[in-house]
C-alpha cells in the first residue's frame, strides 16, 4: 500500500515561491493517485483568504491552483483554527473547503500520516 503524505504549508502567498512550491508537491502527488493531505498552518492560512489582489505585487493568483487540489484527488484539506484566529482571518469565508482543526485535531492528524513535509 502506498505511504500517505501530509504536506504542511506555512508560507504566505506573497512571501516568495514557497507556497506555490508546496502546493506543487501536493498536485504532483495527486496526479500519481497518492494518498495525501494538505494542512495550512501559521502564515500558510493566508493562502485561503478570498479576494486576494496579487496583481498589485505583479504576482500570479495562487487561488486557482489551490482550487485544483480536489480535481487532482487531494480532498483531505485542513487549516489550523488558531492560525486563522491569530491573523484575523474569518474561517467562514475561505476559498477552499477545509476542515478546521484545534490542537488535538492537529496532533491526531500528524499521527495518521506516514510521511510529513513542512514547507
Amino acid at each position, binding site marked *: 500500500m502506498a505511504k500517505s503524505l501530509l504536506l504542511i504549508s506555512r508560507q504566505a502567498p506573497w512571501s516568495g515561491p514557497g507556497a506555490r512550491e508546496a502546493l506543487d508537491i501536493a498536485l504532483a502527488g495527486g496526479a*500519481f493517485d497518492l494518498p495525501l493531505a494538505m494542512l495550512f498552518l501559521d502564515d500558510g492560512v493566508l493562502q485561503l483568504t478570498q479576494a486576494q489582489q496579487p496583481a498589485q505585487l505583479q504576482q500570479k493568483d495562487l487561488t486557482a491552483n489551490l482550487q485544483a487540489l480536489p480535481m487532482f484527488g487531494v480532498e483531505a484539506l485542513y487549516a489550523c483554527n488558531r492560525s486563522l484566529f491569530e491573523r484575523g482571518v474569518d474561517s467562514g469565508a475561505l476559498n477552499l473547503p477545509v476542515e478546521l482543526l484545534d490542537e488535538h485535531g492537529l496532533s491526531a492528524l500528524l499521527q495518521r500520516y506516514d510521511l510529513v513535509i513542512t*514547507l
Partner: protein
Amino acid sequence: MKFAIALFAPPHAPSARRALRFAQAVLAGGHEITRLFFYQDGVHSGSHNVVTPQDELDLSAEWREFVREQQLDGVICIAAALRRGVLSSEEAERHSRPAANLAPDWELSGLGQLHEAMQLADRTICFGGH
C-alpha cells in the same frame, strides 16, 4: 534501511551541511540512499558556479564528490532550478540562456521523482523546510 533525503535550504544554510553529513552517516552506517532530491533553494547546491572562500566549506563541491563517488541518484527539481537559474546545457539551450551551471553529477527532473523516492524508501528525511 533505505533513506530518501530531501533538501530545501540553500548551500550556505546550516541545514544544507547537516543534510550532507546525515547522508554520509547513512552510508557509513551501512544503509542505502534511495535518492537525494533538492527542491526550493536547495537547488543551488547543484550549481557548479558556487564559489566559497578558500578557507571555508565548499558544500556544493562536497555534494558533487559525494554523489559521484557513491554513485547516488541525485535529482534536482527542474521547475525550482529553472526559476533560480540552475540550468543544464539542454535547458540553457532550450531557454536561450548563455551558460549552463548544473554540475554533471546531478539530473534535472520533476516532483514525481520525490514522490517515487518517498514511496520506495523506508524513511524520508527533510532538511531545511519551514
